[in-house]
């Protein structure tokens, strides 16, 4: 991932700023296109993050261990833990 983007929240905040700047300001064309490119990059980042998480159901037990939940809880076909 692009090292200049910290996380979704900062990405979306930057994207918002860019869009507002583009909409408000009468920027030179070069600057506009530069911002546009950055904006596209940011929105791609956000979308990729949205798809990144994977479906998982886990159980945190008394000993602080995280294990896959029994299949009955909607986890994928994992081994039953109880």
């Amino acid at each position, binding site marked *: 991932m692009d090292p200049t983007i910290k996380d979704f929240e900062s990405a979306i905040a930057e994207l918002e700023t860019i869009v507002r700047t583009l909409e408000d300001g009468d920027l030179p064309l070069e600057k506009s296109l530069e911002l546009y490119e950055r*904006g596209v990059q940011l929105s791609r980042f956000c979308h990729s993050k949205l798809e990144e998480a994977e479906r998982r159901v886990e159980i945190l037990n008394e000993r602080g261990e995280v294990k896959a939940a029994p299949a009955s809880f909607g986890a994928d076909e994992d081994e039953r833990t109880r």
Partner: protein
Amino acid sequence: MPSDFFSLPFEEDRKPASTSPAPERRVFSVSELTAAIRGVLESTFGEIRVEGEISNCRLWNTGHMYFTLKDGGAQIKAVMFRSAVRNLRFKAEDGQHVVARGRLGVYDPKGEYQIVCEHLEPRGLGALQLAFEQLKQKLQAEGLFDPARKRPLPSLPRKIGIVTSLDGAAIRDIIQVLRRRHPNAHLVIRPTRVQGEGAASDIVRALRALARVPGVDVVIAARGGGSIEDLWAFNEEMVARAIAACPAPVISAVGHEVDFTIADFVADLRAPTPSAAAEMVVTAKDDFCARIDRLAQRLHTTTRAQVQRRRAIVHALSARRGLAGWQARLAMRGRHAAELTHTLRRAATALLAARSRDLRALRLRLESRDLRRRLSDIRGRLGAADARMHSAAERSRHRADARFGSAAARLESLSPLAVLARGYAVCWNADRTAIIRTADAVAPADRVQVTLHDGEIQCIVEETHRHGSNH
């Protein structure tokens, strides 16, 4: 016991032998008597609490509720007016054991006395209820319910922590909603008891444990519906404080919509049901998606608009006279420049090639020359020059000789000696520094010298005569 109440009807019997004159027998009207009774009842008892079982309970259309309170030996009619009914936390039903708080009253038309209830409290739960109210007030005073404390849910939860029982319907409801709406959800469930002894401390430990799992950025504390006793763990102070201390925002989802617990007040968000809690988490993500899409849309639109505006300006400019065809001209210029560059480069290349060719030829010539041949050549040239010079000198001498001969002859003819030989003489002054050319140059007795062609004569001037004039 209030004396007035009992003294009135039995006065006659208890004081038959009163020494005072027999009081005038007063006859009350029913209304008067009833009014008197009401006065006595109301003033005597004031606000009272009565414990008993509810029976014959009816809620009228007016909103007032009528019932009977009874115990093993007696019963009393009771009424609760609409305003008080509205404040009841539970639905009053026959068979419930309650403590009623109210005042005694008399219903004149029927001659009945009854208790007018302000409040009903289920017996056995009163202490809890009181605890609830007390804790609520205490935490509120501390600012734990302050809206400013409420944290927003993450736009895109990485891991959703869940504190609940694995046996209840709550967890299944949550998973079902998430599966339907947010297929990528990552859940971390910390199973706990949610009711009974030790449930509260279980919940506290679960909240703390989930807070330590990396990536958990929202926590749902859930429990399905139940009686107020069943939900009680969520009304305990330690649970409230653990929720407040949780680093991730907490959604409380306890019981049904109508059930409120202390946890609901402290939580960052209260969900009416566990399913609703899951919906809230998902909605935050949906909102996030929509926000990105809207932003991306605006990004494209505004940029396209900007480019089009520029293009329009360029078109307008190129349409103007004087600027018409500037693009073509610019292109021509560009091509011209390119051609010039090309020509220049070609010329430079050619020049360089020629120069290096020259250099090569020079070097060849330099190397091919034989030094000795050049020397003999020089010598030959020197010899020839020498010979030429010699003959030239010879010729030059002959010429000089001839010139000399004629010059000598001419010199001979010009020599004064030759003239003297013919009889002429030269007269000099005494020291022979000047020739005397005029008679006036000497005076009598001056010495003069006369040169002849073969010698000198020393003379003294006796007289001077000028030709043509007498002196």
